């Protein structure tokens, strides 16, 4: 089956920043993404879990974005503007997609 090269960008970020990030993505012309829930994790700022959350407003989410390779830089630029001052992780990996006309 015919597949096409693409990039998969995954951004783990605080829930309160979610709409700011997706707004920034939309502004940068990125129109497709998926938001996944996150139960907990650990990083430089310590361990946390949804259940152990002191405030219920401070969970995290993962925003996954599949894009054509040539549009990657615009996306990272936009994402970085939001993520910069905040905790979170940004990863990029290669992938292939079906139905490339969608991206």
């Amino acid at each position, binding site marked *: 089956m015919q597949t096409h090269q693409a990039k998969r960008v995954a951004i783990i970020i605080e829930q309160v920043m979610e709409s700011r990030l997706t707004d920034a993505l939309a502004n940068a012309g990125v129109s497709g993404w998926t938001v996944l829930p996150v139960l907990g994790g650990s990083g430089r700022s310590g361990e946390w879990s949804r259940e152990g959350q002191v*405030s219920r407003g*401070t969970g995290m989410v993962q925003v996954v974005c599949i894009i054509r390779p040539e549009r990657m830089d615009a996306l990272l630029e936009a994402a970085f503007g939001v993520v910069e001052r905040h905790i979170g992780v940004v990863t990029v990996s290669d992938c292939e997609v079906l139905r490339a006309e969608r991206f």
Partner: protein
Amino acid sequence: MEQMLSLAAANLLSPIILSFALGVAAALARSDLNIPEAVAKGMSIYLLFAIGFKGGVSVADHGIDATLALSLLAGIVLSAALPLIAFALLQVMGNLSRLDAAAVAAHYGSISIVTFVAGTSVLESGGIVAEGYMVAVAAAMEAPAILSALWLISRGGGDGKRMDGELMREIMLNGSIVLLVGSFLIGWVTGVEGLARIESFIVSPFQGVLCLFLLDMGLVAGRGLRGGSGVLRPGVLAFGVVMPLIGATAGLATGLLLGLTTGGVALFMVLSASASYIAVPAAMRVALPEANPSIYLTLSLGVTFPFNLTLGIPVYVAIASALTGG
């Protein structure tokens, strides 16, 4: 004094405080007891709806007090002013960075609605009435403290653009304010007749739901203490007990000046003494992401909330009773 002690003892041995203690103990012992987030949120929606509705019905029933507008205004001023005191105090007592101090200060100007609910429940079991519109005052006191704290930071230089229209909207329209004010208005419009239709839902089971909710709060507070205990130096810890007393004093003065009933004065004390742990932390994560959440959450939820719940409230009620002759 005697009355104060007996009130405090009665309070400490009430099901709601013991439920809170059970939660704290379970969390400290690292039991896996936990209440699903959705259920806890559902209970908080129930409590907000019930307390708002009953406040509105009481206003419909007793008519508007001339001091309603004044009380709202006083609440706003208190909420905006208390962070300034807290900020100064923190620079004397703890030695937090300016950012951390401002974030903490915002929490203490704003209010904790669960502390407020616990306060009304102590009043009720003592047969003390309060102005129904105090729930509107509670709503009015949520946001101003956040603005004060951001002003403190911007005054100290730095990049400045902490607050934008979007954040402002988020704060003013945060779910608990909207639900509290909304159900207050619904109660006001439908009055005693409306209450009659839903009484067996929002009045009778109220205390019981509060028990389970405080069980969850205890779990959350206990987990916070377990994780955050290392973060707080003694000075900052002391702040978590001193600041509510300062707040309560300010609330007392305000309530007496306004000429409120015993219950109204007590609730003004409770509101001023309480510290936010829902609305303000979320706002701080957006506006002051560099401030350390462990500090303000542990302080507000792990120190001040239990203090008010167990000792503070009965003391405030006793003082209000003594000084208003209630």
